[in-house]
């Protein structure tokens, strides 16, 4: 059933959600955002979640990455039961295993691109040299070797998002989460970002979970999940990840 595009891991999935539900209560109104949703993601794949606005994509991402708690069900990430970890342990888990790319680039105005990337590494207990080596390497990987000394105010939107990706990538995470990473960018820059994410999944064996409205990205994904009203409607794998940019479903 699966095309042999990715290496199948015989063992447990990198990320597993079973029967998760989440509701928000504001005042007397209760919104069921996730409704008994189950999901399993394999390592080394770029999975795209798409769906209408407000259907719970971001909430799902927050729960799978340990930023938010579920009401019921459970999430297993890299063998750890996220629901059983306290705040400290979750922080430690995220520090060791996860990277994030957000819609906003969220870069410190005072720091150069290189320092933005190096900063989280300082907290991982890496040696100074190792942190610098990784920062250098991941900036090179996103094609910013020549702009490492520039501050965010001197970078274009696409470059800023690539710095944000390098910041996540340098941690060498097993799990990489991206929420609408291209929505603030034009087509060409968005294309470049999704290419980079895809390459990261391939070359580093990282599990990349990306939320996006952008139909142009679908062809680059190994797997596309369509969400609506807190459930997954369809789960499919586009025929050829390397296919030319045409016939995009909308």
């Amino acid at each position, binding site marked *: 059933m699966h095309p042999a595009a990715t290496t199948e891991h015989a063992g447990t999935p990198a990320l597993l959600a079973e029967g998760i539900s989440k509701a928000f209560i504001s005042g007397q109104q209760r919104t069921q955002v996730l409704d008994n949703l189950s999901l399993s993601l394999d390592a080394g794949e770029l999975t795209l979640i798409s769906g209408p606005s407000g259907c719970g994509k971001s909430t799902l991402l927050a729960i799978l990455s340990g930023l938010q708690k579920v009401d019921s069900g459970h999430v297993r990430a890299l063998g750890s039961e996220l629901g059983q970890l306290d705040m400290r342990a979750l922080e430690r888990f*995220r520090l060791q295993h996860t990277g994030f790319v957000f819609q906003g680039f969220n870069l410190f105005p005072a720091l150069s691109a290189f*320092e933005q990337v190096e900063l989280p590494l300082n907290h991982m207990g890496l040696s100074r040299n190792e942190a610098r080596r990784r920062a250098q390497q991941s900036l090179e990987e996103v094609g910013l070797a020549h702009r490492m000394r520039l501050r965010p105010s001197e970078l274009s939107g696409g470059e800023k998002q690539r710095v944000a990706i390098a910041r996540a990538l340098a941690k060498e995470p097993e799990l990489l989460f991206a929420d609408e990473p291209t929505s603030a960018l034009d087509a060409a820059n968005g294309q470049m970002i999704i290419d980079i994410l895809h390459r990261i999944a391939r070359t580093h064996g990282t599990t990349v979970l990306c939320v996006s409205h952008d139909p142009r990205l679908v062809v680059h994904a190994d797997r596309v999940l369509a969400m609506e009203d807190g459930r997954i409607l369809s789960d499919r794998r586009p025929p050829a990840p390397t296919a030319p940019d045409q016939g995009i479903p909308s």
Partner: protein
Amino acid sequence: MVALARKTLIYEWRRFLPAMLAVGFAGLLQLLQIALVLGIFGSTSLYITGSSADVWVGYPGTQSVGSGRTIDADVESRILMDPAVLRVEPYIWDDGDWRGPAETGGVSVFVSGIDPSANGLMFSKALPADLRARLAEPDAVVVDRSALDQLGVDIGQTATINGHQVRVVGISSGLRALGGVNVLCSLDTARQLNDDPTDSGPTYLVAKLRNPAQAAAVAVRLRGSTAFGPYTTWSAKDFAKISVRYWLFDTGAGAGVLFLAGIVFLVGAVITSQTLIAAVNGSMREYATLNALGVGVGALRRVVLEQAFWVGALGLLGAGLLGIVLMLLARSQDVPVVLNVPAALGCIILVMGLAAVSGLAAMRSMRRADPATLLR
């Protein structure tokens, strides 16, 4: 380690400037206030600190040099009997009414009658030897430079104190008094000026010891006898303390200092914390991103505290530099300003405490850096 706190402080210095100014002005205000109070009230113990006496003998219950009553002159022989005592001399402190040659009306003066001999103890540190020698002339007085206008005299001129004529033979400096003007003369002149025949003895006896370190013990030992009428003894250090404390607390000045310190702290802390909170809020999404990446809340809070520390340190530096300039200026204008180590430390503690409280307040606002809010 990327120095996020410092780099942000430098890059966004405009944002932190109000906090630094608030801290700096709070520090400066406090520094000058303390220096002025110490300078002004320090002058109330000038009689003690400007002299080389180790032990003071005076009327029991005396709270400041200016409020002494006469004691029996025979106490002197009792003091001299103690083997630890090297020298004793009387000191007469008296109020006087000054009429100068210029139209100044009556000026209230504090007459200090001292032993004008070269090895005299009183004002030995404040009065140059030549001026002291000139006091031996009859009716000679020395006045402070800062009071010349007030007294309406200059050197060589005559005036009257309590109706007796005196002649200004010298001008001293650093003998400013609080609530009046110091006039120095010899013991003989001072006795002449006193028109109340009932108090005949000296106001104080001051003694020099062979070993100044024993002052406290000797003072206690000398206290015992009552054969010569009421008197008590203090070590010079204790008496100076009592005198300054009397002025600080019994005049309400001390309460004023503390009150103003409280206000300064409060206003400074409000401005500083608001500025720091605004700075934290401005970087909230970035902090939240770091937290999403696993950087602990504790580490992020340290960044805020470090910023508060630098704001405090830079504010303090500014306050210190400006304070030194202002104090030199004040000194050159004969405004009494004094700063000692405990007072300077007090200022530093106040300013850094202010910065710390503001940092803690800003740290609290860090709780809003919830990375889940980045996912919407």
